[in-house]
């Protein structure tokens, strides 16, 4: 097998430079590449275009990159939980492109599947459709949306092996597999890194061919955004 293991987040992101387009997996704060984000903050890379479903919260997730003003543009479907984001957006420091969540996911998948464009009904007749090619199939209107072209994808998995195979846990899967397929260079951080042969080939969500670097992350906070519970009856 081909060994994709690198020592840590710092080594993994070594060639991410100012102005690059970076996908970040996760939904809310669930399944986000915590170690990679911390390394990006530490390295201080600027003018990033970030493709991620959400923008984190003020002091966690992509919010950390916003606080240090490393993000030039966010491409997301929902950015609602972040006051610093709002401030930068209103002041014109930050550019934002909002796209429907399914379109976001499918444009990632399209890149990973070598499909230059896809058709989706999401956004037809709305401002999302402005300037976009539309097409009618069997009486229903669709927008043509293009595959993403991202320099890097940063994803977080539960388990991985040094061949780059990834297994996600529960709903922390979300955007991670489709972004893993979509990055020109895909960096995976995992909670548990094992040797090839320890993962059941039938259980692998992302085959190693899509992953260029992998490392075992540390000190996962896995912050809960909305702790909702029921009481014992």
């Amino acid at each position, binding site marked *: 097998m081909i060994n994709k293991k690198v020592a840590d987040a710092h080594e993994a992101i070594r060639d991410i430079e100012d102005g690059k387009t970076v996908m970040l997996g996760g939904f809310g704060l669930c399944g986000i590449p915590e170690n990679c984000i911390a390394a990006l903050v530490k390295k201080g890379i600027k003018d990033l275009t970030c493709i991620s479903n959400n923008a984190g919260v003020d002091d966690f997730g992509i919010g950390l990159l916003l606080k240090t003003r490393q993000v030039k543009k966010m491409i997301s*479907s929902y950015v609602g939980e972040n006051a610093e984001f709002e401030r930068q957006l209103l002041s014109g420091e930050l550019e934002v492109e909002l796209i429907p969540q399914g379109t976001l996911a499918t444009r990632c998948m399209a890149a990973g599947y070598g499909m230059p464009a896809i058709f989706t009904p999401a956004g037809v007749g*709305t401002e999302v459709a402005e300037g976009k090619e539309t097409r009618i199939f069997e009486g229903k209107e669709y927008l043509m949306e293009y595959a993403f072209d991202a320099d890097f994808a940063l994803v977080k998995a539960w388990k991985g092996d040094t061949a780059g195979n990834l297994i996600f846990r529960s*709903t922390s899967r979300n955007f991670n597999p489709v972004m893993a397929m979509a990055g020109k260079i895909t960096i995976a951080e995992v909670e548990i890194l094992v040797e090839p042969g320890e993962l059941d080939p039938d259980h692998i969500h992302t085959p190693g061919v899509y992953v260029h670097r992998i490392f075992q992350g540390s000190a996962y906070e896995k912050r809960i955004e909305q702790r*909702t519970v029921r009481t014992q009856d």
Partner: protein
Amino acid sequence: MLDKNGIARRIAKEIKDGYYVNLGIGIPTLVANYIPTGINVVLQSENGLLGMGPFPFEGEEDPDLINAGKQTITTLPGSSIFDSAMSFGMIRSQKIDLTILGAMEVSENGDIANWKIPGKMVKGMGGAMDLVASAKNIIVAMQHINKVGESKLLPKCTLPLTGVNCIKKIVTELAVLDVLPEGGFRLIERAPGVSVDFIKQSTSGKLFTEADVKEMELN
């Protein structure tokens, strides 16, 4: 007049045995509490889960297990996990039988606006545009009248649209209404204690009513 839970209770009656249902944030989430026993329903959460269960017991929250509202949840036996592309794939291919979501405005031709208010911070459409453009069966749960007393059921939406020509049914604190294929709202049921006249006054879009409009049954 219904409260939020009343709206949720009324909507729950629309759910049929064997339905896969996507519940939006807000009132729609409450619908899960009122699904009649004996009705087998699977809740989809568009972040990648079929078979969403109730909130976890205190101390059993799992940060890796949330719903599309980012709330900690549980799974039920028979649930499955998938990625975001497959999640919206099954939404687009209409495998989800019913979508219930909130709205700021609905127009008499079934347009919906629920994601953006000009001049206010935009949070984003999330999955709402995908859901309304794809689902074959959408129920809107919303207030009939906004906070300044204006109808939210309009001839034409004034806010930026989320989707066009897609809403089939609306349940508000005052009424159940169908959106007619040829345009216009048809009053189906009125909330307990609410008069047809009051619903007429509260509906700015074209409203069709019949001689006898029955009162909702909530059980």
